């Protein structure tokens, strides 16, 4: 019996079986998009794409051997702890000291994909789909739309998971391993966004040209100087992306102190929050719906789909991108606030950040511009910072608010027990 099993193994080894080396996948959807909008009738040429692939490999290495380019003006290791990448990269296993290897492939790649493109083998079966990091956008963070998440924001998602989705919590992993995964996600996000930039840049190239020419050893000075210009353009793309990550922590939206409320005060706060929910400034009702069931506006898409398919009405366009690897787009639903499941976390500060900053890449807008600043004239129609807490309090009370005839139910409950919150 045992000999037969070893025979299977032996045959397998001798005949050269085994998985092929992992490789990063090309950003085909984005390549198609930029080539089409630049009017390249036959899309990118083989040379142009190969040029991008090779520059990407030269700068960022491969899934087994990741690298990170030096960036002028940004201290090495400031945005990315490169030594941590080693723990997350490569095939799963451990080194001679027992340190883990391949954590990303062990824990993440089956959903998020080797490339971080959000199309791992299980992705198509999940709803919502796993995040595609390559756009460099993340939803649940402490910074406004347009700014990168902080290291702590990403770490929170890895630790806590995303409730209501397939993303689990990784709290049971040692801190070092969580850190390594966060670094690796940043690496994939920066890598992906750079690839976008390089594809954009490549639309300017002649058919046979490459992003950076590969020069023969006897190249003349003119060719060398032309190559240096190409290198400078590529470095500019990398720097633009890296600088945004570098600046993330400086852009955290401050959270004002939340008052300690008595039962009656909290009830009043919830009541006012409810008025704001239906009011014309916060206007939550338009999308979250009259009963906050998330049924107000259900035909929109998120930016990960929208950047390719727009409003999704042109079925040919949708089909084309699906054939290029985009998962069949689904409309995005506003959160059903009566379930008490908050994807970005259920701490009051999480809800505060969601309301103030909106949710990047989704239709959820930021309210920050409508919050009063000291320089605003008193007649300006704005909310005070405490009123955001009223909204948070109301949102937190929604799962407990009776849905039928909510107005009456609210009043009755409050009249019966004015000192108790709902």
């Amino acid at each position, binding site marked *: *019996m045992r000999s*037969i099993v070893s*025979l299977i193994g032996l*045959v*397998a080894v001798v*005949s*050269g*079986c*085994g998985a*092929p080396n992992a490789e990063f996948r090309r950003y085909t959807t984005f390549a198609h998009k930029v080539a089409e*909008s*630049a*009017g*390249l009738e036959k899309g990118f040429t083989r040379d142009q794409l*190969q040029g991008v*692939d*090779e*520059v990407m*490999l*030269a*700068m960022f290495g491969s899934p087994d051997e990741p690298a990170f*380019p*030096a960036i*002028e003006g940004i201290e090495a290791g400031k945005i990315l702890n490169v030594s941590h990448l080693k723990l997350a990269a490569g095939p799963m296993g451990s080194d001679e000291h027992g340190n883990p290897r391949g954590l990303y492939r062990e824990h993440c790649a089956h959903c998020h994909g080797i490339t971080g493109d959000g199309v791992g083998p299980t992705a198509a079966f999940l709803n919502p789909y796993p995040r595609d990091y390559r756009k460099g956008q993340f939803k649940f963070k402490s910074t406004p*739309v*347009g700014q990168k998440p902080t290291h702590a924001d990403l770490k929170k998602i890895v630790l806590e998971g995303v409730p209501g989705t397939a993303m689990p919590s990784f709290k049971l992993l040692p801190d070092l391993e969580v850190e390594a995964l966060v670094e690796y996600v940043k690496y994939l996000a920066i890598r992906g966004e750079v690839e976008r930039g390089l594809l*954009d840049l490549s*639309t*300017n190239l002649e058919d046979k040209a490459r992003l*950076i020419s*590969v*020069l023969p050893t006897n190249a003349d000075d003119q060719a060398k100087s032309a*190559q*240096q*210009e190409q*290198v*400078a353009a*590529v*470095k500019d793309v990398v720097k*633009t992306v890296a600088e945004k990550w570098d600046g993330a922590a400086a852009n955290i939206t401050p959270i004002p102190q939340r008052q300690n409320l008595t039962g009656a005060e909290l009830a009043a706060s919830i009541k006012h929050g409810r008025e704001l929910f239906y009011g*014309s*400034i916060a*206007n939550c009702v*338009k*999308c979250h719906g009259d009963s906050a069931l998330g049924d107000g*506006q259900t035909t929109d898409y998120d*930016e990960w789909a*929208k950047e390719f398919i*727009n*409003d999704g009405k042109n079925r040919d366009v949708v089909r084309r991108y699906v054939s290029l690897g985009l998962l069949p787009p689904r409309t995005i639903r506003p959160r059903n606030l009566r379930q008490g499941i908050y994807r970005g976390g259920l701490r009051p500060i999480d809800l505060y950040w969601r309301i103030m900053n*909106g949710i*990047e890449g989704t*239709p959820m*807008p*930021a309210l*920050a*511009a*409508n919050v009063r600043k000291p320089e605003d004239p008193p007649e300006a*129609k*704005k909310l005070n910072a405490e009123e955001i807490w009223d909204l948070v309090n109301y949102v937190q009370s929604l799962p407990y608010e009776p849905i039928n005839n909510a107005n009456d139910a609210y009043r009755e409950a409050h009249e019966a027990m004015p000192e108790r919150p709902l």
Partner: protein
Amino acid sequence: MTTIGRTSALLSCMAVAAASGTGCARHLPPPERAIKTNVVALRKALGSAAEATSAAAANAPVAEPTGWATIKGSFKLNGTPPQRAPLAVTKDHEVCAPGGKPVLSEDLVVDSSGGIKDVVIYLAGPGKFPVGNPKWEHSDYAAAATGSSDYDQKNCVFLTHMFGMRSKQKARILNSDTVGHNTNIQGGGKTAPFNATIPAGASATYDPIGESAEPFGVSCSIHPWMSARMIVRDSPYFAVTKADGTFEIANVPAGVPLEFRVWQEKSKFIQDVTLRGKQEKWKSGRFKITLTPNEPATMDVVVDVAAFGK
């Protein structure tokens, strides 16, 4: 056959299968798309460029403009313009479609003389625009270089359907409706995305931060039929055609070869044009022009309706 015998027969079959089938079929040749020696050479080129680029920048002969000239012109349609499709207004009818008036798509608006509205023409080369360099940026543009312009919406329509601004300018986003909107600016390239609620009569400030290589979308998630386009450029040299299809870009650097790009929402980059009776191909919407100082250039462009066919 005993149980053991049967199992071994089964396992032998599996051994053969393992050898001939599954695992081994996955042996892949190295990808043709990346050549190892190229990657090594590129790594070297990228690594050594830090000191080399500054040297190259110092030596590079940079042509400098010798004066200014104005570009004027128009975009006209050849053929019958397609009907503008009515948009599906699904809520807030009394504000968004007062009196049941249909709201028409603005992806291609042509006036009775054939003038194409909302074609954007913008400077795209040579190289990165040297913001603030008085040889390249005419002093007339200095005053507004960091100013703010208004971006309004009324009756659930973005009043400027194709909006151009400079990257150091700000846009004051207004809402002249009696219902709330949210303005969702897609961004792209170095341009920041933005998405804020704009209550009735209120405003918010948008800082685009950096430029975008091509126009991107602006939408309202509350009223999903609302749609517009925006472009952000470092340089002041861009224009959007008016309702009659005309445009003008004043005080453009002259005496140096320039590259402009031309884009319209429905056609995207305009490639096939007739200029002064001659057919031209603008690859990826690019045309090159070298202006003579103080001599206005006229660009009267005719675009066939087929360019908007998609």
